[in-house]
């Protein structure tokens, strides 16, 4: 579909949220929560903070909740009965004001959840999600979208991408059929775009420090350079913060709860950075040291995912680095990887 350009007046955003709510859809948007900004459901645009640089957590919860029921079971008489969760009850949802990195991340998540075997849970949620992205007017020292093939105004993954123009009004690029369907909820708000609407000058300047292909190749070439990985990861604590805030990390655990006669099977986030992630029953741990786990994180995103799923596993949002309690800065360490001699 060819991208259509429209103008959404700054006052019209409130009306758009109302119309979406009125159509029975839920709206999630960045909301200021004290020192942090997080995606949360909103009833009116006044609750949203569209001037944010980055939320602490990504919005992946909407597609891949941190805890999700994948089965329930109940013993009836002698027989065990299992039942699927009712995914038809999922609400139609619009996420409004998500930056281009996060919108692109949906593709990476999807590549995992639809790799040969189709994950019905992810797909059902995705089907009901419409992404109204928001170009970035500002970045910070952690952002590196431009180094991973994206940019502050990329349309990838957005159904509609908004860019706040100098006038304060929004340029709306309608990218997909889903975006078009959303416009249909309030067609009167989407005015013809002025011919001279200048998107580029409204975008943040994000430096391109490397290319993701280079990063992947170098990481692979230096795989056996233990001094490099162990050196970078010495201060890493092996927590799940980086993976849990990351919009593309998809690793999960499966846990049963309840009794042997009645209960549920849940899946919940997990991380390759945890020391026990890979531990065998014998106690043998294939990734015994944090250096190997940190290497896995970078390799999975920059080498394995491109090789196997034909997508990159990092969109340069910088969340992992901001959230890391010990300042493991992924961008800096990727640059290290490229610069250090092997």
């Amino acid at each position, binding site marked *: 579909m060819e991208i259509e350009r429209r103008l959404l007046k700054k006052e019209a955003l409130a009306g758009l949220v109302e119309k979406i709510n009125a159509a029975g859809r839920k709206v999630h948007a960045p909301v200021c929560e*004290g020192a942090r900004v997080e995606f949360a459901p909103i009833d009116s645009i006044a609750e949203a903070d569209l001037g944010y640089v980055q939320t602490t957590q990504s919005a992946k919860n909407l597609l891949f909740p*941190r*805890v999700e029921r994948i089965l329930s079971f109940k013993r009836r008489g002698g027989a065990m009965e299992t039942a699927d969760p009712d995914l038809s009850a999922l609400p139609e949802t619009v996420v409004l004001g998500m930056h281009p990195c996060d919108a692109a991340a949906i593709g990476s998540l999807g590549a995992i959840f639809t790799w040969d075997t189709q994950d019905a849970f992810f797909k059902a949620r995705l089907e009901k999600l419409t992404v109204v992205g928001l170009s970035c007017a500002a970045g910070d020292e952690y952002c590196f979208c431009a180094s991973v093939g994206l940019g502050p105004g990329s349309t990838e993954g957005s159904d509609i991408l908004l860019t706040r123009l100098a006038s304060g009004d929004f340029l709306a690029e309608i990218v997909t059929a889903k975006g078009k369907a959303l416009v249909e909820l309030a067609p009167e708000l989407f005015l013809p775009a002025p011919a001279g609407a200048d998107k580029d000058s409204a975008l943040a300047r994000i430096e391109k420090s490397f290319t993701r292909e280079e990063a992947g190749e170098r990481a692979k070439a230096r795989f056996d350079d233990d001094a490099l990985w162990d050196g970078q990861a010495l*201060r890493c604590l092996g*927590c799940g913060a980086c993976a849990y805030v990351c919009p593309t990390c998809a690793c999960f655990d499966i*846990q049963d709860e309840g009794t042997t006669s009645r209960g549920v099977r849940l899946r919940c986030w997990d991380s390759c950075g945890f020391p026990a992630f890979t531990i065998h029953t014998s106690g043998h741990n294939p990734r015994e*040291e944090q250096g190997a786990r940190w290497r896995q994180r970078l390799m999975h995103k920059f080498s394995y995912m491109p090789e196997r799923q034909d997508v990159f596993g990092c969109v340069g949002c910088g969340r992992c680095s901001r959230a890391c309690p*010990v300042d493991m800065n992924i961008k800096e360490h990727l640059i290290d990887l490229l610069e250090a001699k092997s």
Partner: protein
Amino acid sequence: MDELRKKARALLEAGEVRVVIGYGGGTGDRARAIFVREPERADELIFDGRCRQNLAIYLTRREVKELGKPAIVATLPALKTVLQLAGEFQIAEGGLVVLAPGADGSLIEFKTFADIEKYLAGAASPIDPAEQAEMDRVRAMSPDERWKYWLGQISRCIKCYACRQACPMCYCPRCTVECNQPQWIPVPSHELGNLEWNVMRAMHLAGRCVDCGDCSRACPVGIPLYLLNRVLIGDIESNFHQRAGMKAEVDYALSTFHPDDRENFIR
């Protein structure tokens, strides 16, 4: 800072330690832990108000232990941690060098745990006014309000375990949440799982927490975990007259049985 760098270089050159665990510059104006192994890199060490991480966390980490004998740049809470870890038999006297830089550029090198004890006995541990204000606010709540407050806070927990991983006293090779026979604490990050996790962790730290605040600072979603810890610190102090990190020998109230222990709470 010069004193610190000089000392670090000398220790490494003399082969007295293999690594100096200290602070270096990080992203923007952040400071971060660095591990100086070559004398010529001692100049990367910094010490100022940004240097808050409790570096004693690294004393029990296998990857750091493998480097050999360490010197550690210790803030006040890190000094307490050293004593508490010693009391719990995780580190031994002579196994490390403890360097405490002062704000004025001075440097104290502690030769013995007894010296640290003496130093701490005379040192004030100021509490952050904003944190104290939050503490007072929560204390003033009715039990019902306070319960709601905590349910709200804890519902935001994502079970990333950054608090545990950052905590120098959470050194167990296998945490209770990872014990699954029985599964004491639910693994998923739902309401019950979060509540049990955070209460369990607070209880395991009661009387052991040195109040460094690193769990709260590590928490990516900003749950004020220090509030839980401080209440328990207060309770342990008033009931058992113990405070973690003041002595290198620990007679830990919650795990030591004395024949004359009160039993009137058992009903």
